[in-house]
């Protein structure tokens, strides 16, 4: 019996003829709706639990149901003054938790529905439970709303009714209805003893799904934040029709004299420091060749180990090292005073030569590690080439010139293309830690500018615009670099 079942696993999935089409369509709809509901739960302006204007406009239903601290974040004063009670918020929180749990169950049921009939019937039950939980959560939200309506200071509590509530209520009812229809009308009972089975491709996909979700939440969802570029948004504010600004912030970049000057200065710093990096990009290759020239491999390896250390410490620690060496009471001044020269210069303060200093620190930190990449390439060069060259009478330098360098050039060209593609991305950490009052103007690169503008000064829309421009230009550069690589080397780099 089980043998026959194993041979025809698909057949058991199918309910009776006619019903199959409807059930199949319903499951497809369920998966789409479940995904849509999950997305909605992340949207701040679509929060059914925002029943009072005291609750932050930027709170999503998901956050309302996972973080009580976020839920009451803007209501501290109201709670302190007794305009509202903690109980009402706790009730609201409980409702949100139930709602979010319900949504997660709906997602779970959509996953289960990929299995055989046995799985599908379990999926229906989970869907029913999820829909009911969501409904229950919404009812709790309503009860909490009644409490908010009952508080004395109505003009301070400002109760409201979020439109999203209707959407969620409809969705919950649809889920319950679908579960009932599928379970009791559309799907037949599975034969007794039917095991839970799912096609391999879906099982593997479901194991993968949580990680895809994480990637979606942390890499794709932020793209949705680009909408801030089109609004006059202030931290804690909201996005709506009244503060829609169109392309104001995009033109602002070019029309505002002060901003334009800032952008020009920052671009100059960025291109200068990236340019210096690109101009010195051959150095690791040279170092690797020099390292490979040591007769003693043990000496070479020891040196490699030592010069790679700085790559593994953070920029904060590089800054600590810089302070210990070059600040007023650091090693250099201490050593000079031992020699009899009184000196208390702080070599880190001034802005003169800051680009070169940053290049030097970058090289100190990264050169050893970058060289090891080429050392690995050199060790994979066919030794027969060198032997043949020796037979032909080539000297040491000629072997480097005609064998080693040409063998390393492909690696070098890939790294060079990649560094050109990321010419705008210097990162902010190095420049942030070395920044001080005197060098701030000439050390500020694009990434640091975005940080200063957006996080330190709270000018969200403008900094978003700058970030968007950067992403767009970087993508174009990467695309160009990739095509150049395809043309020249015949293979792509990404």
């Amino acid at each position: 019996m089980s043998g026959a079942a194993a041979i025809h696993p698909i057949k058991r999935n199918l309910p009776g003829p006619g019903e199959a089409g409807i059930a199949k369509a319903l499951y497809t709809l369920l998966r789409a709706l479940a995904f849509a509901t999950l997305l909605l739960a992340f949207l701040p302006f679509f929060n059914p639990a925002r029943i009072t204007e005291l609750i932050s406009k930027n709170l999503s239903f998901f956050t309302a149901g996972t973080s009580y601290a976020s839920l009451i974040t803007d209501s501290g004063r109201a709670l302190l003054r007794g305009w509202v009670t903690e109980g009402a918020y706790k009730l609201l929180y409980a409702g949100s938790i139930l709602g979010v749990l319900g949504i997660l169950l709906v997602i779970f049921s959509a996953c289960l529905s990929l299995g055989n009939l046995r799985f599908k019937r379990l999926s229906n039950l989970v869907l029913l439970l999820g829909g009911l939980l969501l409904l229950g959560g919404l009812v709790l939200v309503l009860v909490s709303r009644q409490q908010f309506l009952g508080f004395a200071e109505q003009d301070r509590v400002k109760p409201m009714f979020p439109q999203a509530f209707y959407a969620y209520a409809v969705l919950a009812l649809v889920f319950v209805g679908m579960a009932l229809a599928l379970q009791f009308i559309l799907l037949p009972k599975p034969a007794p003893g039917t095991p839970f089975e799912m096609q391999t491709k879906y099982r593997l996909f479901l194991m993968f799904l949580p990680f895809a979700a994480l990637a979606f939440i942390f890499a794709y969802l932020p793209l949705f934040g680009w909408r801030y570029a089109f609004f006059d948004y202030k931290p804690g504010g909201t996005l709506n029709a009244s503060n829609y600004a169109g392309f104001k912030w995009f033109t602002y970049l070019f029309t505002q004299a002060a901003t334009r000057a800032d952008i020009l200065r920052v671009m100059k710093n960025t291109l200068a420091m990236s340019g210096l990096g690109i101009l010195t990009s051959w150095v690791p290759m040279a170092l690797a060749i020099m390292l490979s020239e040591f007769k003693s491999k043990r000496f070479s390896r020891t040196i490699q180990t030592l010069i790679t250390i700085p790559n593994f410490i953070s920029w904060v620690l590089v800054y600590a090292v810089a302070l210990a060496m070059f600040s007023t009471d650091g090693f250099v001044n201490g050593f000079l005073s031992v020699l009899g020269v009184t000196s208390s210069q702080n070599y880190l303060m001034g802005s003169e030569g800051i680009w070169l200093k940053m290049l030097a620190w970058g090289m100190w930190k990264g050169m050893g590690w970058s060289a090891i990449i080429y050392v690995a390439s050199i060790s994979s060069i066919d030794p027969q080439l060198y032997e043949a060259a020796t037979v032909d009478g080539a000297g040491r330098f000629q072997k480097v010139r005609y064998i080693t360098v040409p063998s390393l050039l492909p690696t070098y060209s890939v790294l060079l293309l990649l560094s050109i593609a990321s010419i705008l991305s210097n990162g902010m950490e190095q420049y942030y830690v070395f920044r001080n009052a005197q060098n701030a103007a000439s050390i500020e690169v694009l990434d640091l500018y975005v940080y200063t503008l957006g996080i330190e000064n709270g000018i969200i829309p403008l900094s978003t615009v700058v970030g968007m421009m950067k992403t767009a230009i970087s993508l174009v550069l990467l695309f160009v670099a990739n095509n150049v690589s395809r043309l020249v080397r015949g293979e792509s780099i990404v």
Partner: protein
Amino acid sequence: MNKTKQKHSYTQRESLGGQAFNVFNALFFLVFALSCIFPFYYLFINTISDNTLVQKGLINFYPVGVNFKNYLSLRDVSDVGTAFTVSIARTVLGTALMVIASSFVGYLVTKKEMWKRTFWYRFLIITMYFNAGLIPGYLNMVMLGLTNNFLAYLIPGIVAPFNIILVKTYIESIPAELEESALIDGAGYLTIFTRIIWPLSVPILATIAIFGAVGHWNSFTDSLIFMQSSPKLYTLQHRLYIYLNTNTNLGALLGGGSVDSATAAQIMENTLNAKVIKYTISMVTIIPILLVYPFMTRYFQKGIMLGAVKG
């Protein structure tokens, strides 16, 4: 055309030029290597020497009056202990989560049977090449309630596309017969993963674990951006930065000359104490890296060679 002539002269100079090069080469790398370790040595001898001598800047090449009380007194420096705990916790937990996820996902994406495998693999990998930007990323974390929340250190790092590529490439090099025979014996994918794939991938998992741990330990910007109103959740790097910077500010204040002498003396004393404190915190921050460093060097080559292989 006169290549032979050139070669001739070249060969003649080689012994002399070559020797000169050898000397220069050895000297150059000795200086370079020294510049890479001396600062750490300097920091270390200053933390174990007599503090009054340190304050006068007299400890330059060797320690005097060796003692370890600075390390013990660090217990009284506020917040360093907390920051140390936070950094250790995020390094251990964050690395463990990342390694488990990378190995599992790396295994899954080698399975051709997976529904729309190519699409989903690209869905993950493409995230290496675009970035919504700092501000949208920050607003996203705010929206998720992950600011001022320890989980902000752990969850975003779980899916690491580059490490997934490394593990996938490595698993693809494991003979498929091992897995097939297990499948025939009735093992499920999870069993195969835990019993066969995981033990065989230890070298690559060790590599990504070490690099991941160093990344977590060194992480500074996420603490800076996401923990703005939770000083208790600052990482050790962030705490160190604050201490380093406090010192700078005190120095700037002194240079301004706008304070009376008593205050200046007090600030002076604080500054100098801060010197020892900041050196000691720096050492505490470096030591874990230097401790795992010998183990790391074993995996250098492997990590790099694999990094050169595309997904």
